[in-house]
């Protein structure tokens, strides 16, 4: 079996999710040949230190910065000439943006956001559906299958190192297509809270139901001495400012305590808080994915539990 892993990289900084994808491919029980493919010359040396067969560096000035149409054309050519069985990506926002287009161009399936791949006669792709509540195993009969690996599904620090990779630099021809043009990346004003350095966070999810209920969670946070964080919908509705959003589009935090109230635990949220030392979740749905990563799970109605918990914590603190 022949596999390719696309390495998203900028000025020598390799995207962690790409390495997680590489790790997933390396761990397949019947190990395929592995080519790591990149547009970034500065990452070639690092890549050649991994336990893979080949580093393929594609060269063209149009690949210097992200452009979906140029990227599609470059990789389309490689897949057509090399015909790998698996072509893996990290499920980054960039991959979300251009890899479907590659799939349509080549008419080969793209199994996106996989949490696991394994080999049992055939490659089996696992992805989660219904916002993480159900796992789904899929197979593909296509000569080539494109897949992307969900962030955090494998560990980038478990990528095997090695020294036998060959390095190949290849020029690719790309016809410039000006229908999509990108401006510089920018960060919106940073805000005032420093959630990344907060030790204790009480995080509010859609289960809070309405803006008027936010004080219930704030009182709990005060009793613990915690900052307020939130999931995306609560920010989308304008109930909590954007600089408190936790998750793939917001902050990545790793406090001593992350207390999630009324948060289901979708993967884009988990990405932002999975690294917390302790996780407590209050949710009325015992199947909520947040419980998969919680140390303490409280199954019940937040409007019943939070006031009682707040009072009990205050009492405990007074005693000790």
């Amino acid at each position, binding site marked *: 079996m022949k596999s390719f892993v696309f390495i998203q990289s900028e000025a020598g900084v390799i995207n962690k999710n790409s390495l997680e994808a590489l790790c997933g491919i390396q761990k397949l029980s019947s190990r395929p040949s592995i080519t790591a493919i990149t547009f970034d010359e500065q990452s070639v040396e690092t890549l050649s230190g991994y336990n893979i067969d080949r580093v393929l560096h594609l060269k063209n000035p149009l690949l210097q910065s992200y452009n979906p*149409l140029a990227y599609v054309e470059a990789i389309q050519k490689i897949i057509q000439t090399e015909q790998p069985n698996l072509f893996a990506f990290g499920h980054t*926002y*960039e991959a*979300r*943006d251009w890899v*479907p*287009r590659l*799939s*349509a161009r080549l*008419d080969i*399936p*793209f*199994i*996106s956001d996989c949490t696991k791949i394994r080999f049992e006669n055939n490659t089996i792709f696992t992805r*989660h*559906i*219904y*916002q993480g*509540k*159900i*796992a789904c*195993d*899929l*197979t593909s*009969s*296509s000569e080539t299958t494109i897949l992307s690996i969900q962030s955090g599904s494998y560990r980038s620090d478990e990528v095997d190192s090695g020294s036998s990779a060959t390095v190949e630099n290849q020029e690719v021809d790309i016809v410039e297509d000006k*229908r*999509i*043009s*990108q*401006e*510089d*990346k920018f*960060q*919106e004003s*940073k805000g005032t809270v420093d959630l990344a350095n907060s030790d204790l966070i009480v995080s509010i999810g859609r289960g809070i139901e309405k803006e008027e209920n936010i004080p219930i969670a704030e009182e709990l946070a005060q009793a*613990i001495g915690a900052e307020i964080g939130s999931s*995306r*919908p609560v*920010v989308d509705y304008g109930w909590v400012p954007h600089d408190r959003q936790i998750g*793939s*589009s917001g*902050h990545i935090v790793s406090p001593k*305590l992350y207390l999630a109230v009324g948060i289901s635990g979708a993967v884009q949220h988990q990405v932002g808080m999975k690294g917390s030392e302790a996780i*407590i979740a209050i949710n009325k*749905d015992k*199947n909520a994915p947040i*419980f*998969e990563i*919680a*140390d*303490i*799970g*409280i*199954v*019940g109605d937040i409007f019943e539990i939070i006031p*009682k*918990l707040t009072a009990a914590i205050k009492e*405990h*603190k007074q005693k000790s």
Partner: protein
Amino acid sequence: MKVCVLVKSVIDKDSRFEIKEGLVHFDSYSDRTTNESDNYALEEALLIKESSDQDVEVVVACLGSEDSSQSIKDCLSKGADRAIHILDEKFNSLDALSISKVLKNALEEEKFDIILSGLQSDDIGNGQIGILLSEHLNMSHASLAMETELNGAEKIRVKRELEAGWFQWTTLSLPASITIQSGINKPRYASLRGIMMMKKKPIKVLSSSDIGIELNQATSLLEQSIPKKEKETKFFDGEADSFMDDLINSMANDLKVI
């Protein structure tokens, strides 16, 4: 100018389900709702229509079973002009690539200037359809839009969300397919007048024979299951008063967080 909004009806998040013989079964009386990010896509289309000095027609396209019709009606009540409902049992469990081919065949002759869609569905969550379709219909594309600015009849500028609070503006030549991220706007509710007007708006129903498509899908489902837990969780369930002392004890002594 013609703007299409791709809309999917999904099963409500709180629906109960069980796994039987490797397949998920939802309670038959589960509610359905319009996919969250599709609501934002529809709102964006209506905002484009209302702020443009050109004539803009907003068309809703939905692939889904009969129980999708409430979502379609909601979109029409909110202000979409007409709808296309692609309805055929053969299209029930297709993969992303196949869905995009059905949509291509169904929508190609409309020659839309802009296609908006939610960035991913809350049920299957492939997150690919709008972009697959851009390739099939030879359109430009952008994903995770958090703002759009239509510049005349030729270009649209889109603010794309990147990871960790970063953004990037992208300019697209029309025709363009754009996937919309939640939070881009404040979706409206249907007005009473809108609901009355909806009843006169056309819904075109297309079946597989109208679309004329042979699908040869490469991916197939093996089985569905409940995901494995990653951590040992200590659960507290039932009356809050009955476990509060234990809970405080765990927080203080096991986790040492209070």
